[in-house]
Structures are given as structure tokens and as C-alpha cells.
């Protein structure tokens, strides 16, 4: 009897152990999506592509800082962090968190994830067609190219990660790829996207907030211009121009009785406050659910940056004789002249009201139509078509009512003179849009740093008196134009070598 009980207990236990253990321990999460259940339908693909766009919001602050902090248009305040002022003073250390590229690679990884897993959906969802897939791939490959382009311009050489990190078995220690390799990858991604990116999504905010084929062309033009491939740059620009999908928002409109023209009162509202205007090509679509980082950076009373005083004094200038004459891009559009607040992000209208913390959702402008025109002008200038280049600059200036004081008359045969003039115009047109430093660097590094003096002059102007000499010395070494790789990355990847200036 006892033996019987003993055995039956043992048998029951053995059965329990052997069969149900595995099942009992195999727990799946009850909420949340896991990869095994994802990548089944076209909706899955779409939501992960949208996820790539959503992740762009996290990059805005980095893009703003990388594009402006080393330039001459923003200046620090008492509230700037020590790290921010260090960079402005030319003390760029690998420990500075502004050199952290994490947010950029996060987006790249999301893009890589779509590129790796979306093709599987073709097998499970019959309504998901090859062309749908290619459309989505075009979007994410363009985003990836955009991110690598920012890295290329900021760091020079960076590790090229083209596959998703989905499990700890995917972890690798990469080396830096050469500038040429990164550039080739960007060009390859864009060549793919050029074929498959949609021309329109049928909804205006998506046409401006997602990658269209025009956005691909715009990025191509920028990339070619950076690598001094002017013919391809012009071709890419022309594709946008000849599409006739974009135009400049008029800076002047007829007055009430059609006798004269007045500055367009809606110009700031259309182009910057609301955004997605007819001249917009690609903008990060901030709205009231997701605020941009500019409240803390440039709006709040503890703002960390304002515009430099010379932005108003020298770039836009003021007509002292006739104060009705104003560059429409200047006071209360890019900047508020009374206190140098960066109005492009802070302004709620063109009469002086500011955005509050809860309404700080100005878009981040990646490409606007004037960019296409001015990139083309720059490429024209360097392919001996100075007159055509100057005509474009005039078109931009006329629409903005640029003041006579900022007009130059460069020699149409001197590419570098025109180019310097275009830089001035670009500064006015794209003030605080994260383009200034890259413009300075592109202009200086062209033809093997033939125009390094252009950058040195700017540095001389912005350097604090006690640091001027050491900053100039530093910037004379062209290797210092790229940021150091963040210490964190060097510590976590033993194959990564610090950029030469910072070794």
C-alpha cells in the first residue's frame, strides 16, 4: 500500500516534470508586440516606417547644435551649459556630450530594421506588393542617407552600420568607414530612393512630412554639392525645379487698391509658423502632441541661445532712412531685433507674440525650395555660369525684399566671389535652420581648402578676445573642423579610432 502510494507519487511527479515543464516555463508577454508576431501585414510595415519618422524628433536638438553652434549666428547666454560654451570657445573635447551621435544612429537602426524585416511581409500579406515595399524602402533609405549625411559632415569618418541590431547576437565592433565609403552609401541609398519614392501621398502634411521623390532630389543635390560634384547637383536641382510643384511664397503682395505692393503680412505665418507651405520640401512635423526642443533652447526666459547681434546689424541690416523697407526674413521672422530671440522657433506671429512652452511646435525645416535654388546657384558658380548663378540670387533677394545694404556685385567670372555672396544669402535665407556651420565648412574646404580664410575670418569675428589666437590656430588645422568621436563610443568599441585632431 505504502509502496503503491510512493510509486504513484513518483510517477505523477515525473510526468509533471517531463512534459509540462517546458510548456509551463514558456511564457510570452501578454501585452506589447513581439517580433515573432510582427512583420505580418502591410500595416506593420507602414507603422514601423512612421516610427522612423517619429524618431526624427529626437534628433532635432543635435542637428540644430551641430549645424549652428560652431557657426557665427547664435551666441551663448548666461544659461548656456558649460559644454555649449566650451564648443563656442573652440574647446571641443571628446567628453562633450554634444558630440554624442546616439540619437542619429537610433534612427538609422530603425531604418535598418525596416530594410531587414519588411521584405518578409511579402510572404505573409498577399495585398502587400513589391512596389509598396519599394516605396517604403525608398523612404527609410532616404532617411538613413540623411542621417549619414549629417554624420559625414560633422565627423568626417564614421562607422557604417547597415544592418539592424535585433538581438545580442548582432552586436559588432565596427571600424570607421572612410568618407568616400559613407558618401558612396548615401549615393547608393538615394539612387534607389530616386526610383521608388512616391511623388505624392495625396495629403499635404504627408507630402511635406514624409520623403517624396523631391526630397530625395533635394538631398542628392546637397550631397553632390558637398562632394563638389556640381553637374549632378544641378541635375538634381533641375528635377525639383522642373517639376513645377514648388514655388517661393511671395514676400510682397499688392495693396488693397492694387496700386502698390506691401510686405506680405502672412509670409512668416505661412512659411514658418504653420509650415508645410508651397516652398517646403521636407519638414519634421511637430504638433501639439510633440513639442520641439526649442522652448528650452531659445524661447524660455532661461534660453540657452540667442541670435548674434551682428545677424541684425550686418546680415539683414536696417534701413535707417526708410523703416518701411525691411528684409522680410529679418526682424520678427528669423530674429527679434529688440532682444535677438530666435524668432523662427519662438515667434507666434510677425508682430511680436511668442510661442509658449505648450505651443512650441514649430517645424524643423530640412529642405525648402530656396535651398534648391541657392544650391543650384552655387553649383552654377563653380561651373563657370556666374550670370545664371547671380540671377538666382537676385530672385531670392527680390522675393525677400533684401535691403540694398546687403547687395554685393561680385565678378560673374569669379566663382569664389559669387560663392561668398551666396553664403551671405544662404545665411539670411536659412538663418538658424541648422545649415550655417556646414555652409561655412563647405565653402572653406572646397578645392582642398582653397578658401580656408573664409572660415578663419568668421572664427576671428566670433572668438572671445582671450581665445582668439588659440582658436585661429586650431581652425587653421583643418582636421579640427570635424567633431571628435565621443569618448563613450571609443570606450565601447575598441576598433574605433579617434579623429586625428583629437588623438
Amino acid at each position: 500500500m505504502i509502496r503503491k502510494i510512493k510509486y504513484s507519487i513518483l510517477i505523477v511527479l515525473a510526468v509533471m516534470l517531463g512534459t509540462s515543464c517546458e510548456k509551463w516555463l514558456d511564457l510570452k508577454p501578454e501585452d506589447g508586440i513581439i517580433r515573432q508576431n510582427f512583420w505580418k501585414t502591410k500595416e506593420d510595415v507602414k507603422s514601423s516606417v512612421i516610427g522612423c519618422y517619429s524618431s526624427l524628433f529626437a534628433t532635432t536638438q543635435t542637428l540644430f547644435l551641430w549645424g549652428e553652434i560652431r557657426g557665427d549666428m547664435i551666441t551663448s547666454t548666461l544659461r548656456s551649459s558649460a559644454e555649449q560654451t566650451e564648443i563656442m570657445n573652440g574647446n571641443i573635447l571628446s567628453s562633450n556630450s554634444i558630440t554624442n551621435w546616439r540619437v542619429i544612429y537610433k534612427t538609422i537602426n530603425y531604418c535598418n530594421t525596416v530594410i531587414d524585416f519588411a521584405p518578409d511581409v511579402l510572404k505573409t500579406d498577399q495585398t502587400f506588393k513589391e512596389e509598396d515595399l519599394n516605396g517604403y524602402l525608398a523612404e527609410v533609405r532616404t532617411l538613413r542617407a540623411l542621417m549619414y549625411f549629417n554624420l559625414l559632415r560633422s565627423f568626417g569618418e564614421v562607422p557604417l552600420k547597415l544592418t539592424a541590431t535585433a538581438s545580442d547576437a548582432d552586436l559588432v565592433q565596427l571600424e570607421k568607414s572612410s568618407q568616400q565609403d559613407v558618401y558612396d552609401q548615401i549615393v547608393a541609398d538615394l539612387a534607389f530612393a530616386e526610383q521608388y519614392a512616391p511623388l505624392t501621398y495625396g495629403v499635404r502634411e504627408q507630402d511635406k512630412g514624409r520623403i517624396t521623390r523631391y526630397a530625395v532630389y533635394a538631398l542628392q543635390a546637397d550631397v553632390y554639392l558637398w562632394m563638389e560634384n556640381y553637374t549632378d547637383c544641378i541635375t538634381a536641382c533641375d528635377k525639383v525645379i522642373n517639376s513645377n510643384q514648388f514655388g517661393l511664397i511671395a514676400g510682397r503682395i499688392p495693396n488693397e487698391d492694387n496700386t502698390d505692393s506691401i510686405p506680405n503680412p502672412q509670409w512668416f505665418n505661412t512659411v514658418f509658423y504653420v509650415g508645410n507651405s508651397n516652398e517646403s520640401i521636407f519638414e519634421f512635423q511637430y504638433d501639439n502632441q510633440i513639442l520641439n526642443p526649442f522652448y528650452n533652447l531659445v524661447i524660455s526666459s532661461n534660453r540657452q541661445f540667442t541670435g548674434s547681434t551682428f545677424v541684425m546689424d550686418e546680415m539683414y541690416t536696417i534701413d535707417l532712412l526708410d523703416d518701411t523697407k525691411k528684409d522680410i526674413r529679418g526682424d520678427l521672422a528669423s530674429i527679434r531685433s529688440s532682444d535677438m530671440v530666435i524668432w523662427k522657433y519662438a515667434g507666434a506671429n510677425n508682430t511680436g507674440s511668442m510661442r509658449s512652452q505648450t505651443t512650441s511646435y514649430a517645424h524643423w525645416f530640412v529642405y525648402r525650395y530656396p535651398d534648391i535654388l541657392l544650391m543650384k546657384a552655387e553649383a552654377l558658380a563653380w561651373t563657370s555660369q556666374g550670370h545664371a548663378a547671380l540671377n538666382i540670387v537676385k530672385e531670392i533677394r527680390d522675393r525677400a525684399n533684401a535691403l540694398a545694404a546687403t547687395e554685393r556685385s561680385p565678378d560673374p567670372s569669379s566663382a569664389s566671389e559669387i560663392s561668398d555672396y551666396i553664403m551671405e544669402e544662404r545665411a539670411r535665407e536659412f538663418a538658424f535652420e541648422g545649415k550655417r556651420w556646414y555652409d561655412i565648412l563647405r565653402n572653406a574646404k572646397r578645392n582642398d581648402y582653397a578658401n580656408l580664410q573664409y572660415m578663419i575670418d568668421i572664427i576671428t569675428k566670433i572668438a572671445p578676445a582671450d581665445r582668439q589666437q588659440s582658436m585661429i590656430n586650431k581652425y587653421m588645422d583643418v582636421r579640427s573642423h570635424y567633431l571628435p568621436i565621443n569618448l563613450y563610443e571609443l570606450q565601447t568599441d575598441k576598433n574605433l579610432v579617434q579623429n586625428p585632431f583629437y588623438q
Partner: protein
Amino acid sequence: MQGGGEKARYYASLGYFNQAGTTVGTGMDRITTKINLDYNVSDRIRFRTDITYTHVATDFNYTGSIRNIAYTKMPNMAIYQYDEYGNETPNYFSPASNIQGQYSSTYNPLAMALIGVNHQLGERITPKFQLQYALIPNSVLTGTFDIQFDVNNSKTQTFLPQQATGRPTNETSVNRATDSDGDGLNIQTKTNLIYQPKLKEGHAFQALLSLQSNDTRNVSHNVATTNTASDILQDASNPSRTQNSDLTLASSSSQYRSVGALLSAQYGLYDRYLVNVGLRADGNSRFGPNNRYGLFPSVSVRWRVSGENFMKSLTYVDELSLRASYGHSGNVPGSNYSFYNFYQPFSFSYCGMSGVYPSNMELVNLKWETLIGKNIGFNLAMFKNRFKVDAEYYMNTTKDMFYTGLQISSFTGFDNVSMNVGTMDNTGWEIGLNTVPYKNTNWSVGFDFNIAKNINTLRSVSEFYPKTNGAKINTNGVYQTYLQIGNPFGSYYGFRYLGVYTDADATIARDAQGNKIIGPNEQVVQMRFNYPSIDYQFQPGDAKYEDVNHDGNIDYMDIVYLGNGIPKFTGGFGPNVTYKGNLKLTLFFSYRAGYQLINGTKMTTSNMYGFNNQSTAVLRRWRNPGDETDIPRALYNSGYNWLGSDRYVEDASFIRLRSMTLRYNFPQELLKRIKFKTGSFYITAENLFTWTKYTGQDPDVSSSRNNDPLSYNVDNSMTPPGKTFSMGLSIGF
């Protein structure tokens, strides 16, 4: 209360505990009840039932940083507002911002402590049932079955009123209410079969088969809303703002299971030799299918030397035994489902469409962390147990050590990963002494002493493991630590502080002989900091660091060893005196010796770097050329005056009178008269004195991250242990 008879026994207790915290606005209320019921069905079947219920209501401060803010806030700012006639009003003075910043970097700390709400409620019921069945009587084969439920429900409510921060009403910090519920249910079962055959005299054998299972479920619900209409409306359910990336409405549920089987056998011979071997198999749902199970053997032996015949002549030895053991055991990682790749939605939409992103990576390589313990020890009792020693030496090796959040290159798209990173040794020894040096009929004087040492060393580590703590040694306030395979943890490195450059002449670089360094054009060379990347030239009034290599440049090459935050020895000791067995005085001292602590408070209260309140030490700061002082000049948000240096490193060895207790047990005859079973009265004083050279608030800074070879201990003056006095009367009937 307890009682019962042969068939059944019962026990019931009820307790209430109330405590006001050290910081205003904190406190705790606790009620515990316990009921035990035993019922013997027959002499072979027995039931046991234990039910415990605990209710805890705790008030915390809204944020943990109140003390910190109180230290650093401008001392001349009023607590309350004044009206235009200069009368104090009952309203807290909470400006939206001031020179020191705004919430959350500064606020009115008293307002925050008193009107900020952080209330936590816990209800916990633990019923436990046990069935014992003697399969073969006389304890030859016994089976037990245990099942325990643990129902643990908690609720946390917080509220941040506008008055505490002073921020404008459209911000999400204003009238912010959160409410979170957590429901946990844990079911544990244990089935034991114990086999204990009757053997010949002198032999003892016991075998155990134990099967265990564990199932834990957690469900939680969180909500955060802001901008309720008034700071009286403190519940998150009030109409308020609910949509913002800063707000939450979330719920989650998770489950975790484990099974274990243990087979062990113990054999004893003549009460002198004892051998125990065991084998444990574990399965756990936190691992992926490839690494789900682990096998963990163990063995231990004990030799009671005093039982041997040759020891019989040494009559003063009461007990001497030697022991040794070796065993494996397994640890599981802290998080569930880590071997799945999750996709999560963003909390906001893009162009009106919602997006998802991969929020983690799947951990396919995560496996059991195995702890291999080895130890030898002995205990010795002599002179009728008046002298007892217990000594042990241990070496625990953690193989496949877990590391949560190991930093990885961010080009992977992630910042960190949890993985098995390497092997760590934890070695140490402990000696405990219990002595009664003096004893007569009325008096008994005892003295206890213990000492321990513990060292952690890393034996091997993953290539992903950081080589240093990532300290930016050229930035203020941090120290460098290095990953040193084979060396004990806890050492940190920094500059050597030499005081202040008194004047311009002092800032000129000098070589090893003290002669000024002359440049190629006969010019004098200034001392520099971190040439060429920072290239700061030291000015009079700046902190002076030792130029160890005499190259006129203070940089990473001038970093030296400054100290180690892990004590060489820790322990405690104390005498006790008993009079007539009823009155007993016990003193207990604790000590830690041979370690250096970084006084973080000294650093932040004398750096003069921002707008924070400073200590009076800064009154003697350098102001004019020629000033001889140890405090550098004030530099707002710039300069290198408070780099990690020995200026803040202090010897923190201490001895503390941890507790002193006087206890009086009521004599038996008195108890009998008033019909009580037991009764005693006591007075206890805790943390009365500390003897130390350390200048900070409390040298006993616990190192929470002992397993991190790259961390170092900083004293930031957290709430120190209070001096407490308690009196008690305990009676049993």
C-alpha cells in the same frame, strides 16, 4: 496569544507601528496580524496554516532631492510671502524662477516637503498551508507539501501642487497628480520527500527530494495627469490635462515562473564525520529556450575533531570542528521576457499616423549566472563555552556574471545591453569571538568581537566591458577609475591638490628642479591645463595641481592614485554585563577601517561654480594677488578649480557606538504572581557617538554598487542615521 492542546494549536498576534521620518513630511504607519493554526489529524497527517496580513501606509517626500535643494538653495530666500506692510502671510514663497533656476533645479524645500504629496499604501496577505504525511512512520519516509500565496497590492498617489513650484499654470509640473496601482500574486509550492532509514548505531543517513515551483504575476496601472483646476483637487481622476508626452496612462502585466528539483543526501558517521552532497536542477522562464535549464551540484563535509578519542584528554576543549564546502548555485536576470524583441508605439503620432519602433534587442545569449562558493572554516569552544571562536575563509566566484545595462556602441541603435560579462571573485574571511572573561554568581561580563574583510576582483571580462568609468578627468568634480583585471575594486585616481596660485609668478611653469621653464624665444611658459585640446593657462587664484611629470601641463599624465573606497576591515565589538541574570547592559560598537571617501558635499558647497549656496569655507577664498589660502577664486561656470583631486578625499575610518541596551527581565516569582509568562523592560539608545577624522556628515556610506568595478563611493550627505532612543515593555501571556 497562543495556546491549544494535543490535536490543535493556535497562535495569534497583532502589532501596530508608527514612525515619523527624519525629514518633515515623511512617516509610516503599519499594522500586522498573524494567525497560525496547527491541526494533527492523526499521528501521521498534520496540517499547518499560517496567515499574515500587513497594512502599511507610508508618506514620502514628493521628491528625494529635498535635502539637497535645502542645502544648495539661497539661504536668504523667505519661506513665506510677505505682504506690502512686511507681515508674513501663510502663503509659501515660490517664485516661478530665480537666479538659481526654476523647478526642478530649485524650489521652496519646506513647501515641497509639507504640501507635496507622495502617499504609498500597501496591503499584503500571505496565506501558507502545509500538509505533512508520514508515508512510513517513525520519520523513515515523510512527505510534505507546502503551498504559499502572496497577495501584494500597492498603491502610490502623488501630487505636486502649484504652490510648491510656483510655475505658470500651463506647465505639466503644475498640480500634477499621479496614481499607480500594482497587484502582485505569487504562488509557491514545495513538495519534499525525506527518507531517513533506521541504521546501525553511529550511522545516520538522510535523503531529500524536493520539487519546487514558483509563479509570479504582476499587474500595474499608472496614470499621470496635470493642471487640475485647484491644488485641492489632488486625485488623478479629477478633470485635468491628460494628453502630453510628459503624461502617462499605462498598464502592464507580466508573469514569471521557475521550477526546481533538488536531490540531496547526507551521511553522518559516529557524529564525527558528516558528508552532504546535492544536485539541483533549475528551470526559469526568464531565459530563452536555449539556456532555460541549469544544473548545480554541491558538496560539503564536516569533521568534529573534538569527538575523536585522541581529543578526549583535552578536557578544556568543548567543541572543535572543521568544515569545508563547495557548491554551485544559479542566479536569474532581473527582467522578464528579455529574449523577445519588442516593438513599441511612440506616444505621439506623426502626420496623424502612429509609429512603432523596436524598443530592445532580443537576448538570445543570456544564460545562468553561476555562483561557485568555496569555503573552509572551524569553530572552537573552550572552557565551558566561555571562549568561542568561529572563523571562516571563503572564495566565491561568480561565473558568467550578469551586467545590466552594459554600455555598447550607440551605432547599434542602443545604448546598453544586459549580458553575461565575465568572472568575478569575491574572497574574504570572517572571525567572530564570543567570550565571557568574568563570571561569578551575581555578575557575568561578556565581550564579543568580530572582524571581516571582503575583496572583489575581476578575473576576466567581456570585450564590451568599459575599460574606465568614462570619467572626463578634464571636467570638474569627477574621479577616474580603471578596469584592473586581478586587482581589488574601489580604487580611484585624480590630481594632487597643492593649494592656490597666489600670484602671477606662481603660475609660471617650473621643471623638476624648480627652475622656470623657458620657451624657445626666451619667453616664460605659463602652467597650462590639458594642452593642446583645452590649453587653459592658469591664472592667479586658480587651484594648483601637482605637475607630476614637470612638463608645465596638467593633464591625464598627472593623475595619481588617491584612495580606495572599500574598507580594509569591517566589524563590530562590544561588552555586555549581566547582573543576577535579570539586568543586562549591552553595548555594541561597529567600525570600518582603512578606506577613503570622496566628500561630495564639500565639493559642491565650495566649488563656487554656479548659483548654489556655499559653505562658509568660501569666505576665505582667494581674492587678490598674494592671498595665501586653500580655497581658489570664484569662477562662474568656468575654470578647473574643482577637478577630482585629493582635496576632497578623506580618511573615513570610524568607530560608532551603534547601540546601547539596558534590559530588565522580570523575575519569575513576580511574573507568576501577576499570571504572565514572560515580561521584560528595556531602554535602547542607537547611534550615540561616532569617532572619526572624517569631516562630512556620516562616514558610513554604503556602497550600493559593490559589484561594479568602476564605481567609487561619494558621500553626498544623504539622510544620516538618526540618534534614536526607545523604551519598551514586552509581556507574554
